């Protein structure tokens, strides 16, 4: 934060153009009223506020923007998009930035990505999510003790968390449904690697 940014040399117009193209949003219309920040439910977890990220995109400060924690902490609730006076889908810009960062291997908040992978792993195996599985995998990945341990007794008592994975029943579809989902994930992964981006 406490540094002078040499805008003239850091400026990357191609980055701005790429964000505009991928998100379909015209960021030049942003006049920095800050309404997105004012309504953001994740703002206090951000290192840069969403309006500041929009400013960074306008200026083409690629590293400043893609290395923020904020793009990982966005809840995708699209309150910002709804209230933007310039009709910018700010949430779409945030999602675009997250995709760009991921594809370049910039993961400033690994635990969030680890959670997503844990989630997607259970989907890949069972075709559906399975909370205990997701949590177990997440704990393994993040090397954290289950953060919601205090909830476990209550949750288990109320049978909120299934102990048995609820995979897609085999009799439901001729071809094993879980495997079909697995194939989707597999093809996605192969294609991403083929195209040289991080899956």
């Amino acid at each position, binding site marked *: 934060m406490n540094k002078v940014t040499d805008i003239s040399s850091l400026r990357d117009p191609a980055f701005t153009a790429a964000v505009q193209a991928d998100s379909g949003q015209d960021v030049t219309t942003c006049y920095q009223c800050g*309404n997105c920040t004012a309504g953001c439910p994740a*703002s206090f977890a951000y290192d840069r506020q969403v309006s500041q990220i929009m400013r960074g995109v306008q200026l083409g400060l690629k590293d400043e923007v893609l290395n923020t924690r904020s793009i990982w902490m966005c809840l995708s609730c699209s309150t910002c998009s709804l*209230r933007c006076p310039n009709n910018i889908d700010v949430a779409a810009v945030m999602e675009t930035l997250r995709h760009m960062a991921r594809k370049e291997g910039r993961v400033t908040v690994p635990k969030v990505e680890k959670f997503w992978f844990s989630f997607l792993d259970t989907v890949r195996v069972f075709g559906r999510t399975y909370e205990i599985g997701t949590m177990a995998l997440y704990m393994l990945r993040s090397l954290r003790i289950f953060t919601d341990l205090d909830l476990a007794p209550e949750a288990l008592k109320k049978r909120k968390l299934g102990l048995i994975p609820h995979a897609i029943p085999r009799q439901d579809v001729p071809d094993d449904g879980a495997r079909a989902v697995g194939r989707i994930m597999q093809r996605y992964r192969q294609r991403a690697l083929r195209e040289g981006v991080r899956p």
Partner: protein
Amino acid sequence: MRIGVFICHCGSNIGGTVDCARVAELSRAFPDVVYADDPMYTCAEPGQAAIEAAIHEHRLDGVVVASCTPRMHEPTFRRTVERAGLNRYMFEMANIREHVSWIGKDKEANTNKAAELVLMAVEKLRRNTPLTPKSFDITKKVLIIGGGVAGIQAALDCADGGVPVVLVEREATIGGKMAKLDKTFPTVDCSACILGPKMVDVAQHPNITLYAYAEVEDISGYVGNFSVKIRKKAAYVDWSKCTGCGACTEKCPARKTPDAFNELTGPTTAINIAFPQAIPKKAVINAAHCRQLSKGKCGVCAKVCPTGAIRYDMEDEIVTEEVGSIVAATGYDLMDWTVYSEYGGGKYPDVITSLQYERLLSASGPTGGHILRPSDGREPKSVVFIQCVGSRDKSVGRPYCSGFCCMYTAKQAVLTKDHIPDSQSWVFYMDIRAPGKMYDEFTRRAVEEYGTEYIRGRVSAIYPDGKGQYVVMGVDTLLGQPVEIKADLVVLAVGIEASKGASQLAEKLRISYDQYGFFMESHVKLKPVETNTAGVFLAGVCQGAKDIPASVAQGSAAAAKVLALFARDKLESDPQIAQVDMRRCVNCGKCIRCCPFGAIKEVEMRGEGKAQVIETVCQGCGLCTATCPQGAIQLSHATDNQILAEVNALCQC
């Protein structure tokens, strides 16, 4: 013919993307062109002198200037050729700036296009004939539509200039929005005190006829001779008898009638006089809430009226006025801010508009000048002002700046502190726009002397906290953080829009309006008071956002335009009108049927019926020319042959 062509460089405006010398060179090969040049600034004094010199030297009998839009300088150059002895209609323009140099960067294409436009102008000019205007009498009386401060100023200036004025006001009293204000910026002087005397002057001026509670129904005619139908709405009170004593309003039992003058901040009675200084000070019955008129039971006001002025059977009345000029001064309305659901959309009683706040501040308002919360009548200690609610906001279709909100918000913050010394005002703003005389200093005073906290950022949402206050979720972009403020009262600086019915009035006036309903001036810089319809002028916010001094100035400017118009005894009619070739006319009457102005009549000629154009009525639209299969009626200066010549210049396979 001997035609001279002048290709203007307009500095680099045209010369930058059009090879003007090349266009001049190409022009020399066009039919009848004997002279072509490419001056730097054709409209400047040396440029005009060069045209005059060329006319004499080369014995020109027609001139083409290729430069900016004819809507700008056609009259200028017509005068130029006239000074050199040509008929002013032996002149044509090619628009190579707005339609060529400013919209394309390809110099080759632009140069070619410019040359073609010149060729079209030459071909048209070759078929021009000298035209002479006719003169006609004018009615030296002006109609002013709207009795806000701009209309009042225009009316008083015209009337002082000796011109009879017809002032039409939609509401029951003149005064407009300014009459609702408590104080005005940057002097914080009393609005009613400075406007009141002017309103009285209107009432007393012998040259002013005031139609309050009336609307313009229809307008026909043209500059110098308009005929205006005015609908006097039924007030259910005979104003010739009403003395404004107020006995009726004291006794009226319908005490929950919405009070439009007070911006619905409090109730009033069904029979009502808007405010103590109303002009005219006459009572009007709100028919929807009057028990007699809606249910047929009551009649109290008729019983108590000492002069017997109540007329329950009154109907709207149409009066006709003949005038020579019209000033539109219809002002503005606040946009419907309830589209902002995130601010409660009108659900929260203590989230109000700035105009409602004015009424709370005003001594003649519903709280007698005490700032009290509409919900519980408590005095607010924390007041949040939000700027740009419905201004500079594309998402609600209002991308423009409403101009004066920054200033009145500063004023209201100052007044809040005056009224409630232990209060704190907060202003959420995006930019402070204070370019007027003493304006910026005033906003600084609000901060420095009155402790108003300005927070740069918009407000995302307002919600009640369940404990009697409101949570204002905003941002301080300078701090780079979202902020929350607990407020007792929230005042929204609601953006303005053209007043209701402005576009319909524009259609009656045949003037243009922009997509938001504001009337279009003739030229944004050089003709800010004129419209494209001769004799119709603009004053005040109907033309675009402006504050009181600017509205007053434009009111006076419009009056000056009217007085200048009426300084002549006769007007010249545009000679570019339709003419009938009697030999061709078969009297089928198609032109008579179509003409929007009733400018064609049937006359008897050697025992046969023929169409004839009434020269001073014809406006030159040419609809008749396009209608007549016989080609018997031709619009001078836009004849079939002239347009065909332009088409042929472009399209010869």
